[in-house]
């Protein structure tokens, strides 16, 4: 299953929400869709889920256009919106059963599908509870369950972790990893970027409707931080170390944080070895010398400007 977003453009009156973006993702992988508020993430996701008609461009799911065959897209895409279910007087089981009926599942097939989803999302203990009485985490599970009812090949999740407590976020992350193992193509938008780093294979960074970066997490990390980020901890003379590093050629942005000195080093890996040798030779008692890895949050802060439309 392959999802291709092709030159997608969406305009609301004078506002360009999505400005001719193209990317694609495949089954078995989780792709993060990252951007500040108003970047065009939700609009793009709603187009993929056939809830919006693009101004131009298209989205192909296994080569089938969502504009031309929206019914095909509805059968293959499970969409988890950023709003939680608010139906009154409906229990969890009835809610899932309703969507199973709405997707055209009949008889025992419907019962099996609902049961499987209830077990997978871990809502079997709250089946008779009313939707409105659920916590945010549980509502999110029910929403995910609803999207999984037709067993879709593609899952689009819009801010699924928003407002969840740490435990619920960990549980959601585990569910997503399991879904990726089931060969589903998953596109997920979230503001909790450290979590995306852990579960995503690839990432699309978008701002003002335009793509800023795309690629695997490692590629994007490398591209956005070309210099080696390093950290040195010495047993004493921290201020002398900072002065020394500030005067050293190829060292950029040296700063002291909690007794450790962080900096970036230009050039090849051999240079860090030379630098360490030089520091030891100058009498610094180096207790720790390590490379710090930038995460998605650092990249996000580097490449975006926080602009909205």
């Amino acid at each position, binding site marked *: 299953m*392959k999802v*291709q*977003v*092709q*030159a997608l453009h969406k305009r609301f*009156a*004078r506002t360009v929400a999505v400005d001719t973006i*193209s*990317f*694609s*993702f*495949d089954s078995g*992988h989780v*792709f993060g869709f990252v951007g500040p508020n108003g970047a065009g993430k939700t609009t793009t996701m709603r187009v993929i*889920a*056939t*809830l919006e*008609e693009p101004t131009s*461009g*298209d989205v*192909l799911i296994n080569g089938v*256009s969502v*504009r*031309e065959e*929206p*019914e095909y897209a*509805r*059968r293959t*895409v499970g*969409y988890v*919106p950023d*709003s939680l*279910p*608010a*139906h*009154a*007087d*409906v229990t969890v089981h*009835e809610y899932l*059963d*309703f*969507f199973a*009926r*709405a*997707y*055209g599942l*009949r008889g025992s097939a419907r019962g099996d599908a609902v049961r499987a989803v209830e077990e997978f999302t871990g809502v079997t203990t709250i089946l008779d509870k*009313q939707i409105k009485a659920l916590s945010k985490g549980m509502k999110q599970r029910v929403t995910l369950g*609803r999207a999984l009812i*037709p067993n879709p090949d593609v899952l689009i999740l819009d801010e699924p972790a928003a407002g969840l407590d740490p435990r619920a976020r960990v549980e959601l992350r585990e569910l997503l990893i399991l879904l990726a193992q089931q060969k589903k193509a998953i596109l997920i938008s979230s503001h909790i970027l450290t979590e995306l780093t852990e579960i995503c*294979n*690839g990432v*699309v960074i978008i701002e003002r409707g335009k793509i800023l970066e*795309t*690629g*695997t*997490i*490692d*590629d994007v990390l490398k591209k956005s931080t070309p210099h080696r980020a390093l950290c040195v901890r010495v047993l004493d003379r921290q201020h002398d170390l900072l002065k020394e590093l500030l005067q050293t050629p190829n060292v950029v942005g040296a700063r002291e944080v909690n007794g450790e000195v962080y900096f970036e080093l230009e050039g090849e890996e051999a240079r860090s070895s030379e630098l360490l040798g030089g520091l030891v030779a100058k009498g610094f008692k180096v207790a720790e010398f390590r490379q710090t890895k930038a995460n998605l949050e650092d990249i996000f802060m580097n490449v975006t400007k926080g602009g909205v439309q």
Partner: protein
Amino acid sequence: MAALARLRAWELNPVVVKELRQAVRSWAVTGMLLLFLAVLFFTMLGMLVGYSVMAGGSLAGVSGGRQALGRDIVQVFLPILTFMSLLFIPLYVAVRLAAERSEHNVDLLYITTLSPARIIRGKLMCGIYLTVLFFSVCMPFLVFTNLLRGVDLPTIFIALSAVFLADVLAIQAAIFLACLPATRGFKILIALPVIGFGISCVVGLTGMSFFMLQSGVGSRLGSWSFWGDALTAVLLGGLTFGLLHVASIAMISPASSNRTMPVRVYITASWFIGGATALGWFIVKGWIDPIEAWMAITMVFVVLMLLLGVSEGDERSVRVARAIPTHPARRWIAFFFYNGSAGGLAWATLLGAVTLGFMWLLSEWFNDRSITPATVVMPLDFLQSSTAVFAYTLAYCLAGLFLHRRFFPQRGPMMAGLLAMLVPALWAVLPNLALFFMNKLTWDTLQQRQLGSVFNVFALKDTAHLSHHLAFSLCFALLMAAVNVPWFLKQVRAFKTYVRPENPAPPPLPVK
């Protein structure tokens, strides 16, 4: 066997299942049902005890010696039932649907394979099931009244049928209001006069039921006067119901679907059926009123459709463009019915022009008294004012369209509709405002000829000025049509089957 298999595989509409489950749990439904039951019970008990006391312990001879206790109780029950079914149930269904739409839950329904038509049918069926439930609650009490004297079964059956049909219409009207793409406040604002109308319907139906109960309908069942009135009411109600139904479906259909087509097809079919029926009445009975009513209703719809048509915009979704026929003749027909301002304006104009053309021809025909009965008179004023209103509306819409496309192309298509309403408003207000500041505004000046103002057509002192309005409005419409010809031709040329462009596939994201 295949039919049997289909029957076995048949399942209730998912929306009905959900709605009924919600209704069962809802305090509103349970509470109203219990209240209804209590009111019926205590009403009956009170009346039985009261009448017994008045009759000195014997039910015989009560009700003024007419032995009509059953009828008296039914006369109290029917307004209660009518109130519940005509106000509470439609209100309940509408509030549910409006709440779902405001919470974007209908969006969620779109991403399933449920069609908008099934969603609306589900909501409607739920309302009908609730009505049946309330009727069922009332039924034992009604059966008991039949054991008393003074009421016959056909009368009860016809009165209940009338209430039931009116309720179905009210539920559909409530669904229509709930589907309106408006804010909650605006919907409440619209709902208030509709509730007022509902209350007047309750009063009207109660009055009709009283009349039927007093006079009895059993003896009239074989007469044409009864069935003629009844069938006309059912036909009008049915056409209104159908229109509200297709309009509701269109309103919740995705913007990418060809949602105007069912509405236009339905209105065209209704226009034809209505016209044929009115003509039938004229030929059989020599009545001109149905034809005039048909024309007046058509004109109201044409005016509304012109305003809606001009607000539609020129862009057509790929889904709609794909369905445009390739055959030239079919494509021309499709042009009038598919989404798009040009098609919408052309369709409404054609409908209005054909109606008025037919009426003018009929009017000419009437002048020859050897053909029509001397008593039949086609009022020329009515025809002239209708034509002027149509021409003015067309001119305003075309003016709004021109102003929008020329000066505000970045604004949404709704702007054209707003301008189409702003032009006549300004035209009517500004001259009178000037007169007001010159201290010359009087009731007489308002009733004098003000060419260009459609409102003046309805307030003319001298009806001879109608011909001036007619000539002016037609010239105005022709002028506006002329300035929009390039736009219209562009739209006609653009109305062709979608050919998919060859977009290069984007590079896939590498994965680790």
